[in-house]
């Protein structure tokens, strides 16, 4: 029992630390946006119904990383080397269920839904589905690394194609991308399936997609960790390195906003990159894969305000606003490139 208790204590510590990384959502622009919607509804004396879909979306996207098996945190080789009996391993497996955050969430929700069997069934099915996806994908990748879909993300042509591919992979490994993807797919479905779609809705939707990716611009180097020194050893100017990061970001953003309304979305994205450059270079907050990115609240709010204002301006006054923002972006890229060359 002493051995089991020791393992469970270490496992609890590991799960706690892992859950702490989920707090990154607290400094994410999309979360700010949800809070803003709730606040504006309450201030107007209304129920915050408009915010619910966005907050539910955050919750659903977070469900996947939370579903990972707590026992998976112990390296397989270490686990098999420990002198534990079969019974002890079985007990550990059962006890580890209690360390799964999804289990904690499910219990009170099921208690609330005890008189609504359909809702309870749907909740159970969602939880079981996310658990299955999480454990099957983790197991498959461990057994056959070639099944990793990221492996099939092609390299772009040109001198910097490999670097752009690396940056594309980083973008798709944070949860911000999946929120943006769900929003983009939903908005596209609305455009193509609705008999009379409201044209102004696409302005808002395009900017919300760009907003959900905007925190990432504050932490372009947050996932590089050890690889950051490699950038500094490359015979490249600062602006060239930054451009490879920007290219990957704009490619993803363009694909997501193209079916909805590329002008406002791209304008928002350009503004986000310009305003996010300082924290991306000077602060370089470490980020974690399969988590929401976290930035600096001051920069996040300025990204949201300036991005929304110029996005609306682009929609109202035409592409020259976008052209002006591109000019500002180029100037900012030059300045940031000089900063990289001299200070980093």
């Amino acid at each position, binding site marked *: 029992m002493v051995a089991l208790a020791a393992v469970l204590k270490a496992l609890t510590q590991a799960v706690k630390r892992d859950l702490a990384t989920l707090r990154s959502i607290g400094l994410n622009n999309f979360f700010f946006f949800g809070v803003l919607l709730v606040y504006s509804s309450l201030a107007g004396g209304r129920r915050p119904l408009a915010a619910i879909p966005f907050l539910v979306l955050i919750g659903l996207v977070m469900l996947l990383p939370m579903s990972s098996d707590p026992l998976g945190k112990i390296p397989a080789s270490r686990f098999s080397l420990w002198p534990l009996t079969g019974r002890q391993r079985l007990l550990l497996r059962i006890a580890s269920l209690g360390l799964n955050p999804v289990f904690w969430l499910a219990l009170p929700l099921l208690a609330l839904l005890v008189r609504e069997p359909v809702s309870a069934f749907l909740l159970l099915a969602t939880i079981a589905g996310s658990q299955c996806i999480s454990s099957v994908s983790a197991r498959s990748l461990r057994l056959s*690394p*070639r099944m*990793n879909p*990221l*492996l099939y993300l092609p*390299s772009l042509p*040109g*001198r*910097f*194609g*490999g*670097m752009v*591919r*690396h940056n594309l*992979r*980083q973008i798709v*490994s944070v949860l911000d991308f999946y929120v943006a993807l769900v929003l983009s797919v939903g908005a596209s479905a609305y455009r193509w399936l609705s008999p009379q779609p409201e044209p102004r809705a696409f302005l808002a939707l395009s900017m919300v997609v760009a907003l959900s990716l905007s925190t990432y611009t504050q932490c372009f180097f947050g*996932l*590089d*960790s*050890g*690889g*950051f*020194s*490699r950038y*500094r*050893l*490359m*015979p*490249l*100017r600062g602006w060239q390195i930054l451009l490879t990061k920007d290219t990957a970001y704009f490619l993803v953003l363009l694909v997501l906003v193209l079916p909805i309304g590329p002008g406002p979305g791209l304008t928002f994205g350009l503004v986000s990159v310009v305003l996010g450059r300082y924290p991306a270079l000077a602060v370089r907050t470490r980020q974690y894969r399969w988590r929401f990115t976290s930035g600096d609240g001051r920069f996040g709010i300025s990204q949201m305000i300036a991005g929304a204002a110029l996005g609306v301006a682009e929609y109202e006054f035409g592409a020259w606003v976008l052209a002006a923002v591109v000019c500002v972006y180029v100037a900012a890229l030059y300045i940031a490139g000089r900063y990289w060359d001299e200070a980093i």
Partner: protein
Amino acid sequence: MIHCRNVTKKFRDFTALDDVSFEVPAGISALIGPNGAGKSTLLKILTGLISPDTGEVRIGGLDISSQSIEIRRIIGVVPEDLGLFDSLTIREHLEMTGPIYGLTKPQTRERMNDLLLMLGLDHARDTFLNQCSYGMRKKTALAMAILHAPRVLFLDEPFEGLDPVVSKTVQNLLLDAAKQGATIFLVSHTLSIVEQIAKEIMLIRGGRIVWTSSQDDGRRPLEDLYFELVESQHLEPLRWLHLRQS
């Protein structure tokens, strides 16, 4: 080929390098010393990763403070943290590196295949770096450093984590490159290998170069010299370490 004059580097109150001066000619040179002596700091300064507080560094006649891009074109580096990206496979690291140094796609592919075979990485070429062992990561960093046939190689612990066969292969590769005129500056704790392949050896302690092979006519084994000049062994046994009889 490498000129380092009066280089000093402080981190707050700690002096990592104290007025270090030396010149390294073409061929293999090695820097040895205990942990915390300033080896990696010196290597970072020589490769432009950090700037010295005072002093001058020139690589191949180029000044590191004003011609860093030109220097990066002619050097290959295995940095202390290896400088690898978790989201790329071994093959993709090399495919990315070639074009950055001006190699064409066919050139990159040909050299990559040679290096992967030579370093025993061919079977794992499509493995993501976060799934690689330390030895595989080290070999990937080595392959990246060598791919563009640099004039100067800076290697931080190049033999650590390699199996004996690959270690021997890398030694031969370095000796061959040195014969062709390359300059190789390595930092290592593997004294036996250093003694075998390095033409010049420098010993650093407390941020100062305390011994260089070029100024020493004696033929004492490097290990003896190291323990005499740098640190003595900790000989006190662990009282609790006695294997139980079962």
